[in-house]
């Protein structure tokens, strides 16, 4: 993304704040605007910018400082309320579900996370009142961020399922989005039929039925669908080559992935894991690897180098390490891969052994 584009994205996002906040934020120097990932608006607290380099406070004149001292712009409650109304397009009633889910997607792919007092009925959140803080996340689609991955992981020109792991802010979603766009736009020589199950609206950032981010030409988006239901709907109705999901983790997600593997679909997904040890320790990750849906795991470096590869692991080897050489399950996993490889390439459905589910 060019520097001017990044500044423009910041300016576009702050348009959805109250006039006073907008005025101050537009005064922020361009070199800071390019760095900003989030704008934090909290009642009776200073207006705060979250950047790669750290936390910055905005002064009354629109300057920025790393120090919490006098002269900062303290956000008034009315500014939070007004910003909330602008974010809702003065139509709070039209955003009930999004408010309950805790965020509103804005044109341009930006996202406003909301905090307030929950109204709960039968243990379910039915509404949020007294909005006290807003986290405005600025959408930054970085085209080409997945080039290195595409060239390294798929250098042979063949596509296989990939699980992207990394700590928070390591660029998992950004990489996933770019990889999706490139695959759906024929970067591997074929316009792959791609379906994004975008539960949290972060990948495609659909607004009024239109994707705000470029996710490729041959791509369908199941916006707001829970991952498990979305995967099943994609399998039944969209016949995808690839299903893309962000942050897999629930047991229901894993079961849906398992069903997808049985239908011969490839997956491109992300998961939280800061290092190899964490990857191997987490029960959900192990369960996911045992489904046989993924052949490789890509670990990203971290928030200091977002989107950069740290290491690539072979799933068979990872499971081998987890369960030991003499472990029947890991051996079975590897054997199954070898045996079913030719059938898989002919498009024959793979039958995943449900025995793997019993390991954990």
């Amino acid at each position, binding site marked *: 993304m060019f520097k001017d584009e990044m500044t423009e994205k910041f300016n576009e996002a702050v*348009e*959805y704040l109250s*006039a006073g906040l*907008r005025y101050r934020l537009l005064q922020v120097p361009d070199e800071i605007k390019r760095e900003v990932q989030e704008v934090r608006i909290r009642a009776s607290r200073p207006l705060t910018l979250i950047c790669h380099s750290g936390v910055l406070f905005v002064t009354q004149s629109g300057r920025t400082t790393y120090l919490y001292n006098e002269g900062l712009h303290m956000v008034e409650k009315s500014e939070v309320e*007004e910003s909330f*109304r*602008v974010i*809702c*397009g*003065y*139509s*709070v*009633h*039209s955003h*009930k579900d999004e408010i309950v889910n805790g965020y509103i997607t804005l*044109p341009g792919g930006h996202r406003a996370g909301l905090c307030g007092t929950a109204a709960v009925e039968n243990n379910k959140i039915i*509404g949020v009142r007294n909005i006290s803080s807003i986290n405005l996340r600025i959408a930054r689609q970085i085209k080409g961020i997945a080039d290195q991955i595409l060239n390294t992981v798929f250098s042979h020109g063949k596509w296989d399922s990939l699980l992207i792991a990394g700590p928070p802010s390591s660029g998992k979603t950004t990489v996933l989005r770019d990889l999706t766009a490139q695959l759906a736009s024929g970067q591997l020589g074929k316009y792959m039929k791609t379906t994004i199950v975008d539960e949290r609206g972060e990948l495609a950032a659909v607004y009024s039925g239109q994707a705000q981010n470029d996710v490729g030409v041959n791509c369908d988006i199941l916006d707001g669908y829970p991952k498990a239901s979305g995967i099943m709907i994609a399998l039944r109705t969209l016949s995808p080559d690839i299903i893309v999901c962000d942050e897999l983790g629930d047991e229901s997600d894993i079961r849906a992935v398992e069903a997808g593997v049985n239908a011969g679909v490839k997956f491109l997904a992300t998961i939280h894991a800061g290092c190899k040890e964490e990857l191997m320790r987490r029960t959900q990750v192990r369960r996911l690897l045992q489904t046989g849906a993924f052949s490789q795991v890509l670990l990203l470096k971290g928030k200091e180098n977002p989107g950069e590869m740290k290491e690539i692991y072979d799933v068979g080897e990872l499971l081998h390490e987890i369960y030991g050489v003499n472990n029947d399950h890991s051996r079975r996993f590897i054997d199954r891969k070898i045996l079913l490889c030719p059938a898989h390439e002919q498009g024959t459905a793979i039958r995943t052994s449900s025995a793997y589910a019993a390991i954990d």
Partner: protein
Amino acid sequence: MLQLIENEICYCALPVRELLKKIDSRIELADLTFVSDCREKYTISSDFALIWRESVRKSNVCLNAEDKNLLCSFGDALGTTDISGQINICRLHAKLFEERLEQAKQTREKQGKMYTNMGALTGVFLAVILF
């Protein structure tokens, strides 16, 4: 208009921008020129309540100052709550407007009688003077 807004919010949760478009497209509501004015001026970052207020104040719709105030207070509340809150706001303002209409009818009746009597008396007076 209030009934239309209430229905659209209740059954479609239509956002304010769409509501304005819908009202603007209804021939029977063509007299409410402030709606199209508001629709033209309202942008993503503008203060809807302020623009609504300005449009109502500037419009030459046949409403007195108090009626316009009531319409402005409706604009202040439009789109600021959840669906049930919006329905209540629509109903409250519809009721207040009905009361204003009732008052206007009574005033017209009272003043109508007075002006008829005054006209008759003036006629008699002129007849006395002329003859």
